[in-house]
């Protein structure tokens, strides 16, 4: 029984993540407003990050973050540590991705503000009409 | 000069509290960080040097925190919790004037934040010239300034004057 519930929850979470990614793509593709596109972009990027972290998760107990609590670990401490921690690689990659997404989002927002100054609108349909 | 030292000490305390350990590394970096923070910000935080050396104010502050956190808060929490759980209990909210008599910014802020932190009363606005706080009160018992002062802010102001004025 436990096994079945665990499996259901695991697959359900994957589906929720993929559906949110789909939502983000939908927002970027369909919504005409530039700021709305940017919001969708942040949602897409954030969900991709959760996706990456979820890859590194393991269903054991007790589970701990990969931080050692002593400076001179003995063999026992290390073996104990190895059986409890999550994978440290996905968090490291995700931090990089968060910074990158944030930097690009900020740059795009600046571009959108500048576009509003020039065009007087943020609607991408109107912008492509006015380009001339 | 004292303001820099006091603010620096305060910063150092927070740094050590947040690091949670006292090695040489923590102390050294803490000293550097608190020095930088106090150099940048002390001049906008403290106006009068003479007040910060007064130890009695610190005691009043501790007494106030104990009194406030144990008695006043608990009573107010119970009152509002009753209103939430019991659907028949009436709420008759409104925004009333509450005068205040404190002189410095910090005292005013202490009074008004204490009022907001007490469930049942929230400071919506304040008039610095007329010295009036506009308080949203969940159960308006009185609307005259004297009585609202009595109900809402008298205790806080007593402490605030001793701590900051």
């Amino acid at each position, binding site marked *: 029984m436990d096994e079945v519930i665990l499996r259901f929850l695991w697959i359900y979470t994957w589906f929720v993540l993929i559906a949110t990614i789909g939502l983000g793509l939908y927002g970027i593709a369909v919504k005409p407003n530039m700021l709305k596109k940017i919001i969708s972009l942040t949602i897409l990027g954030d969900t991709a990050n959760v996706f990456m972290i979820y890859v590194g998760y393991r269903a054991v107990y007790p589970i701990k973050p990969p931080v050692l609590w002593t400076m001179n670990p003995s063999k026992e401490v290390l073996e104990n540590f190895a059986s409890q921690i999550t994978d440290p690689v996905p968090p490291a990659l995700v931090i990089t991705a968060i910074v990158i997404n944030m930097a690009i989002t900020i740059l795009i927002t600046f571009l959108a503000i500048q576009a509003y100054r020039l065009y007087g609108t943020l609607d991408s349909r109107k912008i492509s009409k006015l380009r001339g | 000069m004292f303001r820099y030292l006091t603010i620096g000490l305060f910063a150092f305390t927070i740094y050590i509290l947040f690091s949670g350990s006292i090695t040489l590394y923590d102390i050294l970096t803490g000293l550097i960080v608190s020095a930088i923070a106090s150099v940048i910000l002390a001049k906008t935080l403290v106006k009068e040097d003479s007040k910060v050396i007064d130890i009695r104010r610190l005691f009043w502050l501790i007494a106030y925190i104990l009194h406030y956190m144990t008695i006043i808060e608990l009573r107010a929490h119970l009152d*509002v919790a009753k209103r*939430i759980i019991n659907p028949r209990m009436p709420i008759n909210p*409104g925004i009333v004037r509450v005068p205040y008599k404190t002189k410095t910014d910090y005292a005013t802020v202490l009074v008004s934040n204490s009022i907001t932190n007490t469930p049942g009363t929230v400071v*919506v*606005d304040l008039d610095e010239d007329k010295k009036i706080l506009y308080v949203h009160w969940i159960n308006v018992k009185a*609307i005259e300034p004297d009585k609202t002062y009595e109900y809402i802010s008298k205790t806080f102001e007593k402490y605030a004057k001793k701590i900051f004025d």
Partner: protein
Amino acid sequence: MEVILAIAFYIGLALVVIGAISDLIGALGMLRFPNFYVRLHAATIGAIGGAVYPLIGVALMSPSLTSLGTYRWYLMGASLVTALFIAMAAPTGSHALARAAHRAKVVEVYPKVVDHLEEDGK
């Protein structure tokens, strides 16, 4: 010394339990109350009763948690700083929101017995 720590521990535990209950009450109030201004009071219960009290409780509990080693002081310090911080920030945030909502007139003050702020023309 151990007795004092144990007493502190139990007080802390009680505070944590109180925190959980006030959190639930605050959430219920947020849901039940009819208007933004009234919900502010429920949010206060959530922030002070539901966050500051349990944080102080954790700070009182942490010296007894010996299995955490020296990091129990880290737990204690961080929870104290966070408690202090929330005690300062929560009321200010509520006040700022309420004032902005009243000035921009995005929320009607309803139900109301009296509104002196509107009478004074702000």
